[in-house]
């Protein structure tokens, strides 16, 4: 009876673990999205395609992708910070195998991946993809990360020069 009970408990934890693991990615309700954990190697997309390969996957200046064991290549276009990509989340793993969690979006236009969590190879712990935000905070002390897109000096410069509509002098007046 004890053995049966232990087996039940073990199985329960296993199922809960599997469930938590499988549904940990936040779903966004995007057409063609699938919450999906992936094992792959972090690669520089331009290098993988064209053979032009700078050191360290371009040191954060190149778009990155996940190369799966079967040869499938997914571009990682989005990370955990609003309006921010996935390069800074994965650049520390350039050329290495990673286990990630996120949304795979399969659209007729293209297939893309939104990385939301990365699992540490050493500890097995998951961490959210917040590196872009941390880097931005470090570069912009005193400014609010939640409004980075309003407070970033690069954005301000472009808006000053071209306006919010991209045409100097053209202004949208809300009705």
């Amino acid at each position, binding site marked *: 009876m004890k053995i049966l009970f232990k087996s039940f408990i073990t199985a329960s934890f296993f199922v809960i673990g599997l469930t938590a693991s499988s549904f940990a990615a936040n779903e966004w309700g995007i057409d063609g999205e699938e919450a999906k954990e992936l094992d792959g190697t972090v690669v520089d997309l331009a290098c993988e395609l*064209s053979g032009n390969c700078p050191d360290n996957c*371009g040191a954060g200046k*190149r778009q990155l992708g996940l190369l799966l064991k079967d040869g499938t*290549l997914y571009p990682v276009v989005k990370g955990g910070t609003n309006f921010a*990509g996935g390069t800074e989340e994965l650049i520390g793993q350039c050329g290495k195998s990673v286990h990630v969690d996120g949304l795979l979006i399969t659209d007729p*236009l293209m297939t893309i991946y939104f990385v939301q969590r990365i699992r540490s190879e050493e500890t097995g712990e998951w961490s959210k993809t917040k590196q872009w935000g941390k880097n931005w905070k470090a570069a912009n002390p005193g400014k609010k990360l939640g409004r980075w897109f309003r407070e970033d000096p690069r954005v301000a410069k472009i808006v000053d020069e071209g306006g919010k*509509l991209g045409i100097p002098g053209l202004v*949208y007046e*809300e009705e």
Partner: protein
Amino acid sequence: MNRYLSDIFLSVVNSLMIKPTRLLPGYFIVIASILSANGAAVSAATSPERVQVTGEIIDTWCYVTEIMGDAQGTAHHLCAVWCAIGGIPVSILGEDGHVYMVLKVESEDANVANPTVVNIQTHKVTVDGDLYERDGVKYLFVNQVADDQGVVNLNHEDYGIIPFGK
């Protein structure tokens, strides 16, 4: 003496014959590794197709996912700038309806928040480049921006400014 020289000669011949045989696995591993490394580079780098694309510079994430609706034109310009500066890949929405993810513009290899690309968000351009297609994605390496018409898709009167209205 002749016998002695003959023995030496045979010894040398034997050593030459045996050593390569013994070393074969080592040589084989080294040569195979070199071939494998080159082979990997070659297999990874596929042959591109030379193309000319005309279309609008867009934000890949918002357009493909449609989380901002029809993410193009002046209505979505500000958001496209945010996303490009945030490091989300930039694409060209071609007049043919395809979306081409831009990984290189002329001599500039950087494709994350590249100021050159950020500054032409929403512009209508014609580019010559190399197209690589892989696993459902069209990747474009732009060799030359042949024409830049600036922002011509004026849809803000219909949609306002997306996403926050100002």
